[in-house]
């Protein structure tokens, strides 16, 4: 997983997630970790299971929404939490390897369930020498 940082930002009813990193891929990785942090502390997630996510979209913003929605769906359908990700982006295609484990109610103490990813405050852009990838998640 590349360098960068994950952040949350305020939104009226829901929650904003933002990733920053030296590459667009690392910004996406950090955005997904910010999403995990809405549910539980990513540092407490053990990398027991590996899965692969692939997406393709007409532009980078939609690619971020699609990628984040894949993570939300995996969390919901397979009751997983993810603490480690590796994202590769080529053009408008994304391939991510994600590591995590089934949610453990005692250890992860999950707080809030993401329902889906919106295009509100959606942004994928270069700011100075770092990339930023952000959106608002409905919880």
């Amino acid at each position: 997983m590349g360098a960068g940082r994950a952040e949350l930002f305020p939104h009226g009813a829901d929650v904003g997630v933002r990733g920053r990193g030296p590459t667009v891929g690392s910004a996406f990785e950090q955005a997904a970790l910010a999403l995990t942090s809405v549910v539980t502390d990513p540092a407490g997630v053990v990398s027991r299971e590996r899965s692969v996510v692939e997406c393709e979209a007409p532009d980078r913003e939609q690619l971020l929404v699609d990628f984040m929605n894949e993570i939300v769906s995996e969390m919901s359908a397979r009751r997983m939490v993810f603490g480690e990700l590796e994202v590769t982006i080529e053009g408008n295609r994304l391939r991510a390897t994600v590591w995590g484990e089934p949610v453990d109610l005692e250890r992860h103490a999950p707080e809030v369930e993401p329902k889906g990813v919106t295009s509100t405050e959606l942004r994928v852009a270069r700011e100075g020498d770092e990339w930023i990838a952000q959106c608002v998640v409905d919880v």
Partner: protein
Amino acid sequence: MDVSRLTRIGDTEWRLEATGAMRVPVVIYAGEELVRDMDEMVGTQASNVATLPGIVRASYVMPDGHWGYGFPIGGVAAFDPEQGGVVSAGGVGFDISCGVRCLRTGLGTERIQKKKTDLADRLFEHIPAGVGSVGRVHLNDEAMTAMLRGGACWAIERGYGVPADLEHTEERGCMAGARPEHVSHRARARQRDEMGTLGSGNHYLEVQRVAEIHDDRAAAAFGLSVDEVVISIHCGSRGLGHQIGTDFLREMTLDAAHRGLALADRDLACAPIRSDVGERYLGAMRAGINCALANRQILTHLARDVVRSVFSGADVSVLYDVSHNTCKEEEHVVDGGTRRLFVHRKGATRALGPGRPELPETLRDAGQPVLVGGSMGTESWVLAGTTDAMGLSWGSACHGAGRRMSRHEATRRWRGRELVRELSARGIEIRSRAMRGVAEEAPGAYKDVRAVVEATHRAGLARKVARLEPLVCVKG
């Protein structure tokens, strides 16, 4: 919101005239303080809705309006299919048919108070709540399809409740026009283990005391009297609805680009009602409504069992079940003629006035019960639909207090455990696994529900019937 941008029409009505690409004006129903407290984004989002094809009369905002995605929360808009009208996945939201069901228990407050802790513990033990909770009903693909067609009727056929429960459930418990074949495998996978679960966030099951009656006749029709205890369940269509929203938001966004429809905001994603995508969405969304109705029916059954285990012989009956995230095809009077419109209510409760054929005989004189959830630890309300609201807002009213502070800010100001202690000292038992979630739902993070209800009443959108005070809250 800066009120100088608005034209004041009356005590509780404000107008933002149509400019630029807006096809109709924005009409906001709220008192001055509530309008000033609204984020500027509410006006922006309601104005964006006003640009959509086929919108009729106005883009409305209810008194609890706040900043959402695409449509504002508390947004109401009707579209005419004969005028190129659209259906919008963003106008319904992810939590399709999220709503409130209110149950009468026939028990008095004094009786409940004596066993309140026991009742709270047993409800918490038996009602699956919070992230990662799993229901007791697990569905294979065939059973899932039957549930998506049958809604609450499906649940009752399987023993989760009694036929009388359907009488006072919107659509008599089964939404017509559901097309389970348009619900994706992913959506079904997300729902497999989630039937009969509350979910998280602002979803809850609350035991409440009728504290005041404001309209004796309507209260009698609704079977409410002071000091009686009711149970309100707030939840929706769970993972299935969330995935239907996700699938169609994407498809409609890309489809709009192909059709050359420039959306002011991607979350306004929509398609003509008379189009392949539009019709598939309506079929899937109606299946999502049935999922929510079945979910609240199973939760009713679980709650009924718990109440009877604590108070033997208790008669738990449904007062009403009404959704606040839907798009419904309804008949409305426009310019003296009747038209069939597709009314989107996003965080807004349907509030049909007296005489409407959708209402059961027992409620046809009083108007539809409008169930308004307050913030945790404050108060909730039962209102009644009015004839005036049919003309004012397509028969729609507020749905809750409405957030006034982000979750982010709420967790900086409050700690969950302290809130649980404070509320317990005030006689309100909170049960939750998510302490940060409790802080996010702190009463202070919401607008004053009483101000919202007063504005709704004064505006004529719905009239006050009963005020409810919480005794126990199982928070998702």
